[in-house]
C-alpha cells in the first residue's frame, strides 16, 4: 500500500526542498556579495593586522568564557531544580527561564545596568547602608559576561532540566538501591544522560556569544572590548569604512562556518519542551538540600531582579510623552508588522522543511541511500544557516545590494530584517516542529493510507490536531524574537525605518534614561504577555 504512495512522497519533497535551496542560495549570495565588493589585493595584504588579531582574540575569549560560565551555572541550577521539584513558585521560575530565550537583549542590558550600573540598585544600597560603592564600571568584559550568562545560562538550565527530568525513574531507583553517593549518582546516572546535550548546548551558546551584537555594542564600552560583529557595525555606521567592514565580515563568516562545521551538530536544544513534572524518588541529604535551595535562590535573584528593576524604573516614566511621540508609534507598529510577518513565514518554512526532512528520514517513505542522506544533511544545514551567517553580515550584504540596485532603502531594510528574523527563528522552529511531524508520520502513515486520507484531509485529521500547539508556539517564539531583535536594524535604522529596540537604543544612546525605562517596560510587557498568553488563549479557544 505504501509503495503506491512513494511517488507522492517524492513530489512532496519539493516545497521544502525549494525553500532549503533558497536559503542556501541566500547564503551563497551573502558570500558572493561580500567577495564581489572586496578589493582582493588590499584584502589579502591587510588581512592580518594587529587590530584584526585583537578582535578575533577578544571575540573568541569572551565567547569561550561566557560559554563555560553559562554551562557551569546551567548545569548546577538544572540539577538543583531537578532534585528540588516541589517548592512553591518552581513552575514560575521554570517559565521565566523559558521566556529568557525571547527576552529582547536590550531589555536584559537595561535591567543589568539598573541593578549593577554605577547608579544601580546595588551601588545605591551599598552607598546608603555602608557609605561605599563599587568603582568598577559595568561596561567592559564584566558587563558582557554578565549579560551573556543571564541569557545563555537560563537557556542551558531549561534544556538540561528537561534532560534531568527525562532520566528514567528506574535509573535513580537502581542507583539508590546500590547505595550510590551523590557524586557517583551524578557520574554514572546523570552525567551520561546530559553528556551529549552538553556538547550541542555548549556549541550553540558559543556561536550565539561569538556573534553576539547588541550586548557587546551596549556594554562593551570601549574599542578594547569590541567583537568582530560590533567592529563591522562601527565600520559601516560610524567610520563609513566599507572595505574594513567587508574584511571583518569575511573573517567572521569563515570562522563561524568552521565553527558550525566543527560542532557537527546543527541541533538546537529545545529549551521549552514541557517538563516531565516527575518527582525524583531520592531524598537528598540535608546539607545537599541546603546547597540546592541556596543555588536556586541566588540564581532566581540573578534572573528576576533585572526584570523587576525594569518594572520599577519604568513606572516612573512619563508614558503620556512616550505614547504621543510619533517615532514611538511608528516603531511600535513597524515592530508588530515585522514580527507578525516573520512569525508567519517561519511557521510555513518550518512546516515545509520538516515535511521534506521526514520523507528523507523515514525509510518507508523514501528508501534510504547515500543521496537521501546527503539531501537530509543539506536540508538540516539550510535551516540552521543563521549560526554560520550572523544577521549583521546578512544585513551588510543587503546594505551593499541596496547601494547597487536602486530600490527604496525601506524595502531593502524591511527585506533584510525579515530575512534575518526568519533565519534566526528557524533553528528553534525546526527543533520544535520536526520531532512531532516525524512521530505523526511514523504512527499514522499506515492508518491514513488505509483510510485514503490525503492532502487537505490528512492535514485536517492527522497533522493539524497534533501540530497546532507547536505551530502556535513557533509563531509566538518567532514573533517575540523578532520583536526584540537589534541586529540588522542597527545598520538600516533611521527616523524613516525604526523598530522598538532601535528606538530604545537611540534613547539609551542619548541618555534619555527615564523614557528609555518606559519603553523598556512596554517592550518587556509586550514580549512576555504575548509569549505567555498567546499559546494559552489558543489552547483555551481550541478546547471549548
Amino acid at each position, binding site marked *: 500500500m505504501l509503495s503506491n504512495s512513494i511517488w507522492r512522497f517524492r513530489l512532496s519533497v519539493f516545497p521544502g526542498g525549494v525553500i532549503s535551496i533558497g536559503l542556501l542560495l541566500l547564503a551563497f549570495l551573502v558570500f558572493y556579495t561580500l567577495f564581489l565588493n572586496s578589493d582582493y589585493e588590499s584584502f589579502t595584504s591587510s588581512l592580518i593586522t594587529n587590530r584584526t588579531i585583537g578582535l578575533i582574540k577578544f571575540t573568541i575569549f569572551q565567547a569561550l568564557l561566557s560559554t563555560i560560565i553559562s554551562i557551569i551555572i546551567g548545569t548546577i541550577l538544572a540539577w538543583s531544580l531537578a532534585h528540588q521539584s516541589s517548592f512553591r513558585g518552581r513552575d514560575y521560575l521554570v517559565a521565566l527561564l523559558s521566556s529568557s530565550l525571547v527576552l529582547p537583549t536590550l531589555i536584559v542590558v537595561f535591567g543589568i545596568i539598573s541593578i549593577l550600573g554605577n547608579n544601580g540598585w546595588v551601588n545605591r544600597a551599598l552607598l546608603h547602608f555602608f557609605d561605599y560603592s563599587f568603582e568598577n564600571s559595568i561596561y567592559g568584559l564584566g558587563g558582557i559576561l554578565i549579560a551573556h550568562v543571564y541569557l545563555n545560562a537560563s537557556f542551558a538550565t531549561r534544556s538540561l532540566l528537561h534532560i534531568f527530568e527525562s532520566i528514567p525513574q528506574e535509573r535513580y531507583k*537502581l542507583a539508590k538501591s*546500590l547505595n550510590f553517593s551523590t557524586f557517583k549518582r551524578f557520574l554514572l546516572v546523570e552525567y551520561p544522560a546530559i553528556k551529549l546535550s552538553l556538547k550541542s548546548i555548549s556549541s550553540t551558546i558559543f556561536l550565539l556569544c561569538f556573534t553576539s551584537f547588541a550586548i557587546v555594542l551596549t556594554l562593551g564600552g570601549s574599542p578594547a572590548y569590541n567583537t568582530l560583529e560590533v567592529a563591522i557595525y562601527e565600520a559601516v555606521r560610524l567610520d563609513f569604512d566599507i572595505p574594513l567592514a567587508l574584511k571583518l565580515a569575511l573573517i567572521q563568516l569563515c570562522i563561524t562556518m568552521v565553527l558550525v562545521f566543527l560542532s557537527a551538530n546543527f541541533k538546537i536544544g529545545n529549551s521549552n519542551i514541557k517538563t516531565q513534572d516527575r518527582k525524583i*524518588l531520592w531524598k537528598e541529604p540535608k546539607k545537599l538540600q541546603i546547597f540546592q535551595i541556596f543555588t536556586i535562590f541566588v540564581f532566581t535573584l540573578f534572573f528576576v531582579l533585572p526584570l523587576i528593576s525594569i518594572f520599577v524604573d519604568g513606572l516612573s516614566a512619563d508614558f503620556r510623552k512616550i505614547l504621543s511621540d510619533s517615532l514611538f508609534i511608528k516603531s511600535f507598529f513597524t515592530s508588530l508588522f515585522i514580527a507578525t510577518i516573520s512569525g508567519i513565514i517561519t511557521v510555513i518554512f518550518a512546516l515545509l522543511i520538516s515535511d521534506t526532512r521526514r520523507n528523507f528520514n523515514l525509510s518507508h517513505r523514501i528508501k534510504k541511500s547515500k543521496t537521501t542522506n546527503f539531501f537530509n544533511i543539506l536540508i538540516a544545514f539550510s535551516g540552521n544557516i543563521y549560526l554560520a551567517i550572523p544577521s549583521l553580515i546578512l544585513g551588510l550584504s543587503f546594505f551593499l545590494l541596496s547601494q547597487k540596485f536602486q530600490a527604496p532603502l525601506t524595502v531593502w531594510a524591511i527585506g533584510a530584517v525579515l530575512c534575518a528574523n526568519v533565519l534566526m527563528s528557524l533553528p528553534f522552529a525546526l527543533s520544535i516542529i520536526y520531532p512531532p511531524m516525524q512521530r505523526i508520520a511514523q504512527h499514522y502513515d499506515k492508518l491514513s493510507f488505509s483510510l485514503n486520507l490525503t492532502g487537505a484531509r490528512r492535514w485536517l485529521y492527522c497533522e493539524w490536531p497534533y501540530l497546532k500547539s507547536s505551530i502556535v508556539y513557533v509563531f509566538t517564539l518567532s514573533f517575540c524574537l523578532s520583536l526584540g531583535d537589534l541586529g540588522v536594524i542597527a545598520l538600516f535604522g533611521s527616523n524613516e525605518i525604526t523598530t522598538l529596540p532601535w528606538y530604545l537604543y537611540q534613547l539609551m544612546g542619548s541618555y534619555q534614561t527615564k523614557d528609555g525605562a518606559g519603553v523598556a517596560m512596554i517592550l518587556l510587557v509586550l514580549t512576555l504577555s504575548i509569549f505567555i498568553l498567546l499559546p494559552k488563549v489558543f489552547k483555551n479557544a481550541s478546547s471549548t
Partner: protein
Amino acid sequence: MLQVHNLTYRYDETIYDFSLHVEKNEIVGITGESGSGKSTLLDLIAGFLTPLSGNISFKNEDITLLNTEHRPITILFQKYNTFEHLSVIKNVLLGIGTSLKVKKQDLDEAKQILKEVGLEGFENKIASSLSGGQSQRVALARSLIRKKPILLLDEPFTGLDLQTRIKMLNLVKKISKKRGLYTIMVTHDINDCELIANRVYNVKNGKLCLV
C-alpha cells in the same frame, strides 16, 4: 520470613492496603491490570515510597523505616537495569560497592556469577552492545553479587521473546532455590507466574487477593 502487614499508601483517589508473606526459597507472583498498583507494592517494599501505615518485617525485624540502600533487598526492573556505557563486569561489580578500586577476590566472584547466569566471556563487552536477555542476565548477576536475601522483580522479562523469557524465568527459579532467596515477581502475564511462582496474588481495588 518476609512479612508485609497492612501496608497502606494513597495515590490520587486510590488507597492501597497490602498484606502478604514470603517464605525462604519461595517465589510469590503478583499480577493485575496496568495501573492496579503492582509496582507501587514493590516501590513500598523497596523503600522508594513511604507508606501511610503498616509495616514490613524481615526475619522478625521491622525494616519499614530503613532507607532503600539499607534494606535486605535487590531489584530487577523491566528496563534501564544496566549502565550502558560501562562494561559487563563493571556493571556487576557496582553491586559490591561503588569504589573505583576493585579487589581480585571481588573480580573473581563477579566472573563466577556471570558464569552462573550464562555470560561467561562477556566480561569486557560494553553493556549497550548486549541483547535484551543478556542485559537482564547482567542485572541478575549484579543482584546476586549483592547477596541480599530478598529479590524483587518488576516485570523484568516483559519485552523479551518467548524462548528467552522462559530461559530467564527458569534461571530465576534455579538461582532463587540455590541461594535461598525470598522472591517477589510482579508481572502482567499469568503464564510467567504459572511457570515459576509458588503462590500468586492479584491486585484488585488496591488489595491483594490470593489466586
